[in-house]
């Protein structure tokens, strides 16, 4: 039986139960998603976008699903210590796919800002959510979208109304917690309206040594002249599989930064799909990957320049040790009429061992004639001359290697605008390279 079939069959058997524990706006798209997944199946590695990750294999095992939404006895405030100290954030938790609402940050949010359970808000704000939900992450376009839309019962909703500036960064800690192997399908919807501003930090953690398979589909709507920074940090473990699709749509003059940092994981595939719909909009996309053992990290990105006078910058850096495998496939598409586009994409990679593998594919497609675009990638080893130079100054070889790796990803970390987060990530990356971060830093259970 193909892996997708076990999920479509599960849905066919449990559709009432799934729907009864969710909300009408979410339920409305399930049947369409079910049909899409039946048609699409999971992509084989012959499908270009999934060339580097075996989806079928990842989804084949029999994971439990908490469709009946049995509550999980854990208090995230107890098990989790914020690992970004001095960063005054409004802190929220997601337990698997559920917004953890027992305790809310004391600092009040600006007037009109909403943060909470997607299912709940879709009841109270059904028009707002129905007009956005599933509009970017189409089921017929991608199997992960289809699967997630078919099964997701809840998730996160963030709404910043027109003109509102959220001064204090929002931090959402995603915690995977289970006593058995578990599949989680989390859905995220973010709306930042015209002229609004938001900084969002999302950290992924898994606090049990179980096999987790988490899909996450995020839709982000950024209005005219709005500013949004999203920092995504994965710090899970080797039994964790993450399939995350993020779709961003930017209106005129909008400015978005997406920073994706994979510090520790099992298998990760991130698809980031940004559409510059309005003129003068801007996207900065940065990625930093540190992997060793048999970890697998695949970043697949698309920046779609649909309007003129837009800017995009994309920079991903990987450091691969052990038998890790990394993949980067970045595509910049400059459509007809997207004149005066400026775009710069680069992917630089370090393979520190013979066994580490990197697959890189920078792609640039231009259908306009007045643009300035660049793309490129490199794969290399640590500079032997630099190593010798450092050792001649007395720095032990292991330390010298570490300094060089750290320097390599430093450029990406320095792009982080939240200073305490930047410092913290320098610290965490350093620990990671020293092999002291085999489990997540902030969890009590891991200590």
């Amino acid at each position: 039986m193909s892996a997708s079939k076990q999920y479509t069959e599960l849905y066919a058997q449990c559709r009432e139960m799934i729907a009864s524990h969710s909300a009408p706006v979410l339920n409305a798209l399930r049947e369409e998603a079910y049909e899409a997944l039946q048609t699409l199946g999971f992509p084989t590695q012959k499908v270009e976008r999934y060339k580097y990750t075996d989806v079928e294999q990842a989804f084949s095992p029999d994971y439990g699903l908490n469709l009946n939404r049995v509550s999980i006895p854990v208090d995230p405030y107890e098990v989790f210590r914020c690992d970004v100290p001095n960063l005054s954030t409004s802190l929220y938790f997601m337990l698997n796919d559920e917004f953890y609402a027992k305790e809310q940050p004391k600092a009040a949010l600006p007037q009109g800002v909403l943060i909470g359970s997607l299912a709940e808000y879709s009841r109270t704000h059904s028009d707002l959510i129905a007009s956005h939900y599933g509009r970017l992450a189409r089921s017929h376009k991608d199997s992960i979208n289809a699967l997630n839309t078919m099964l997701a019962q809840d998730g996160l909703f963030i709404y910043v109304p027109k003109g509102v500036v959220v001064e204090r960064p929002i931090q959402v800690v995603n915690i995977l917690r289970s006593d058995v192997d578990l599949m989680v399908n989390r859905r995220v919807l973010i709306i930042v309206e015209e002229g609004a501003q938001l900084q969002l930090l999302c950290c992924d953690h898994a606090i049990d040594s179980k096999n987790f398979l988490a899909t996450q589909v995020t839709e982000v709507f950024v209005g005219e002249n709005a500013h949004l920074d999203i920092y995504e940090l994965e710090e899970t473990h080797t039994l964790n599989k993450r399939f995350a699709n993020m779709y961003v749509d930017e209106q005129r003059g909008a400015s978005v930064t997406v920073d994706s940092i994979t510090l520790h994981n099992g298998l990760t595939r991130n698809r980031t799909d940004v559409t510059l719909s309005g003129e003068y909009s801007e996207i900065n996309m940065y990625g930093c990957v540190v992997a060793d053992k048999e970890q697998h990290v695949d970043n697949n990105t698309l920046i779609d320049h649909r309007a003129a006078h837009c800017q995009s910058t994309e920079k991903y850096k990987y450091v691969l040790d052990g038998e890790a495998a990394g993949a980067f496939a970045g595509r910049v598409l400059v459509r007809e009429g997207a004149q005066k586009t400026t775009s710069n994409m680069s992917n630089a990679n370090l393979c520190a061992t013979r066994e580490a593998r990197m697959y890189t594919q920078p792609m640039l497609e231009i259908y306009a004639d007045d643009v300035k675009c660049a793309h490129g990638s490199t794969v290399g080893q640590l500079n032997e001359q630099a190593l010798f130079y450092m050792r001649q100054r007395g720095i032990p070889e292991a330390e010298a290697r570490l300094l060089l790796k750290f320097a390599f990803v430093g450029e990406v970390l320095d792009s982080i605008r939240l200073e305490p987060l930047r410092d913290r990530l320098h610290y965490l990356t350093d620990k990671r390279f020293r092999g002291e971060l085999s489990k997540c830093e902030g969890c009590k259970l891991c200590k």
Partner: protein
Amino acid sequence: MLEIKNLHASINGKEILKGINLTVRDGEIHAVMGTNGAGKSTLSNVIVGHPAYEVTEGEIIFNGQDLLAMKTEERANAGIFMSFQQPIEIPGVSMTNFMRAAVNARRKYQGLEPMPAGEFLKLMREKRKIVELDSKLANRSVNEGFSGGEKKRNEIFQMAMLEPTLSILDETDSGLDVDALRIVAEGFNKLRTPETSAIVITHYQRLLDYLKPDIIHVLIDGKIIKTAGPELALEIEEKGFDWIKEEAGL
């Protein structure tokens, strides 16, 4: 301090050093001169332990220790410093972090605690003055975007920070203008003590005018064929190497 006995070394299977004998005592400065490709840089690289070179015969004793049995970093921490002919650029590693790692590695080797941050920065400031190194350079990545002269001054700055007992200056004068040469040479002289020694590799008398070596060696085709006092350097400047080769029957 340093005793090299019958040293043979090769790179990629090709023998470069063919039996070097050299003894450096405390406080002495030795100059090694010779034609291109004679093996001068190989000699310095073998002393500091460059992994590309293979020692096929002979031994090097440094203050009683078997140097060839030590790793590159151990040799450095034991007090050997090489000023590189072409200092390496290391993008992303700041001079400060680089020096801190080096200073603390040395201290660890000596059984000392890491140097407190304040004390370290003060030391950086003091030592920078010796070679008139701009404070801005200290905040930049190691050698990145430094001019040729700045790179060489930076080498002497690092030497000042690490206070080696044996310094090897590998063509430190190459690529330097007259002023930069003076700054580098004077910086080096300020660091001299009766306990520190140096091996200076050079083609020219210019640097030796400042450094005033005690002994001059001529290295040709992997062997030291003549050793004499400082007057030899002047003779070489005037007459070249041919007469020495003839004298040696080469």
